[in-house]
């Protein structure tokens, strides 16, 4: 590890990141009104910087796809659709005037009527179709897993099938089965999930603290 102490530029970066992170963390556990004010300012700055990063990203995507269309690249058609979609969303979400009681007005939020209509008519059906496709993917993955003969994959498939069968209305009314499934959910499944959660939480805690003290610096393009 190259020590930030030997590099003033890195030291300043680590101090800014560490102190900012610590203030927001302390506010999270309720360290008092002064910390709250500072943390709120920092979080707003972070949100602003993120928004600027997204705007830069949009320009980058726009330019890259425009170049592909100009160069008549093999998949320029997709780029054309993407740019068209981008323009529709931007115009509908920011620039499309709607009639209100006081006259014409631009959309106040991204959840207002024009953009909501675009999302309802285009995005939501597409997202729902992809989700529906998962059912067939799951079926195919299950068959492949059984064919592969891997013990852990077969175990997951058998447990999933059992869980599905035991939740059938006909079986759920049988008292012993209903209680057994409930017991499995409350103890066995919850214990496994909590074990996974605890391990992940420890990993997240160490990852966060290492970022605070400058052992990891993904933000520093050194």
């Amino acid at each position, binding site marked *: 590890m190259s020590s930030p102490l030997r590099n003033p530029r890195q030291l300043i970066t680590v101090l800014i990141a560490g102190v900012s992170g610590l203030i927001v963390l302390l506010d999270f*556990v309720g360290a008092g009104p002064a910390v709250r004010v500072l943390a709120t300012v920092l979080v707003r700055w972070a949100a602003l910087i*993120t928004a600027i990063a997204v705007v*830069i990203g949009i320009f*980058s995507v726009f330019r890259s796809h425009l170049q592909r269309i100009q160069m008549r690249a093999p998949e320029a058609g997709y780029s054309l659709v993407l740019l068209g979609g981008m323009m529709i969303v931007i115009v509908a979400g920011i620039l499309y005037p709607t009639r209100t009681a006081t006259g014409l007005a631009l959309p106040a939020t991204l959840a207002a009527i024009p953009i909501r209509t675009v999302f309802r008519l285009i995005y939501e059906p597409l997202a729902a179709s992809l989700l529906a496709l998962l059912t067939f993917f799951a079926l195919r993955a299950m068959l492949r897993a059984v064919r*592969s003969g891997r013990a852990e994959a077969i175990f*997951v498939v058998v447990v999933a099938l059992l869980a599905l069968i035991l939740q059938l209305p006909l079986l759920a009314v049988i008292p012993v089965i209903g209680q057994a499934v409930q017991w499995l959910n409350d103890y066995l499944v919850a214990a496994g999930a909590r074990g996974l959660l605890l391990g992940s939480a420890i*990993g997240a805690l160490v990852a966060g603290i290492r970022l605070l003290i400058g052992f990891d610096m*993904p933000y*520093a*393009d050194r």
Partner: protein
Amino acid sequence: MTLPAIFFIIILVLVIALIWLHYARVQAGRVPERRPLPALEVLRAALARSAETGRPVHLSPGASTIAAGEGQRASTAELLAGLNIIGRAAEQAAAGGASIVVSSADAVAHLALRGVVRQSYRSFGQEQSFDPRQIELWAHGDAMAYTAAVAAIYARTPLEASLLAGAFAQEVLLTAETGAERMVPQVLGSTHPSALSLMAITTPHTLIGEEIYAAEAYLTPTATPQARLLTHDALRTVVVWLMLIAFGYGFFRIAFGWPALAGW
């Protein structure tokens, strides 16, 4: 200052002390033996093969976001784990001349990835080989769109292997099943139980829960990741002991009439 804040500061100081202690221990050459993680051997082998075949290895920190807002799936920690793994894999790629494609589903994560991969190439004196076009933003804030994009890349580009380690939910099936169908060796890791079950049926190479945080230590012999692993193990041991003590207390308190623990 409230009691939780004071408690938090004490824990923070203890964990920082533990990290420094383990760092010093590893620097002194006291590295413990680790259990094998075969999934990472698959990644190593793919990176080595990539240098010969020229086919890229796809690396992804998942559809993770930095500073997830209210109502979103908080995934900053998984993203950090993914960044660390990708950084180490990029080091191996830089050292061996392997080709990589790195993708993400968040504009800020995309910028962080560029920094991490550039650092990796620079640390091996291969900055001239770093191409920012290796790091691509395939979606923003939409896990389903991102996994569909990864599936499309599987269909279009011959890959040596693909690593997806970070925040995923059930949508990972879209990618993982496409990869399995096209016989792309996949290393999949997540902390999400529903994603893990789907990963387990689509590939034999999975990183389960905390293993995505430990993976970095398996990809490099440097001191920092080893110290991180030791700190994980120490904290896990503390948690296990606390649970055992609490269980023992709960068991005997009825017999001896001791007071109940708060929150139990």
